[in-house]
């Protein structure tokens, strides 16, 4: 663990790679929107994250963080090792050829996912800017 290689970076990295992976799965769904018997696939990592949040009912705050008000955000951070499973979505069958892809839903997923990706990317970018700022200030003495 160092200033550039800490838990925050690990979480951001993981989030980026999972979002990217999901985008590729969604691209595969869209490409196969007219393939008979194709079932859409997705990543179940949002569910996994939620599970992780609710796991221990105890104070999820990491050491060093203290909430002085119940309305404050928790300092909880998911473990970056949280696995995301590829799942087959079996909920919809709206066509005669047993294809489960709903193009509108997939497009909505694509927009939602890429927006999330860019949000995480922006956070990473600002983090790097802070670090760069810190390094230049330090080197100027």
């Amino acid at each position: 663990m160092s200033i550039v290689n800490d838990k925050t970076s690990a979480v951001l990295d993981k989030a980026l790679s999972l979002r990217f992976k999901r985008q590729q799965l969604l691209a595969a769904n869209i490409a196969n929107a007219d393939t008979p018997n194709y079932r859409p696939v997705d990543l179940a990592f949002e569910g996994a994250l939620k599970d992780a949040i609710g796991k221990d009912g105890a104070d999820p705050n990491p050491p060093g963080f203290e909430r002085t008000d119940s309305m404050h955000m928790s300092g909880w951070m998911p473990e970056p090792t949280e696995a995301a499973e590829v799942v087959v979505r079996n909920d919809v069958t709206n066509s005669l050829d047993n294809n489960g892809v709903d193009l509108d839903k997939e497009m909505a997923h694509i927009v939602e996912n890429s927006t999330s990706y860019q949000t995480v990317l922006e956070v990473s970018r600002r983090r790097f800017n802070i670090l760069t700022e810190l390094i230049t200030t330090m080197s100027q003495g």
Partner: protein
Amino acid sequence: MFKGLNIASGGMSAQRARLHVISSNIANASTTRTEDGGPYKRQEAVFRTTLPEGWAEKVKNGVPTNAAADMSLRGVEVSEVQKDNVPGPIIFDPGHPDADENGNVELPNVNPVEEMVDMIAASRSFEANAQSFQTLRDMITRAMDIGR
């Protein structure tokens, strides 16, 4: 990293191939003479999923269990162009050069309205793939810009 782009572009090619078949159907909506004899029969592109690059070999040798994620990145291709052998409408037109001895002519089994609907569906699917390609490309470009 570029797997998703390949999948999206594969989807675009497949939809384009489907559009070609539809154009052929519309162009031949009243063709009564073909090299096989008889009227033109409408054709349809049949899609199937493709395995990711290099996976055909791996599948043959037994798939490693942790590979479910890669296996699910399936592209699409046109597996065949199938002929629809439903008989076309028969009209009575003794003056037609392809009329039989009773003066009946079998027309192609192409319904232009159905073809137009199919054409719109294909071009929408093409656009969806193009959009998915562009979104992925934007994501990659933004990631490249992170250090600036």
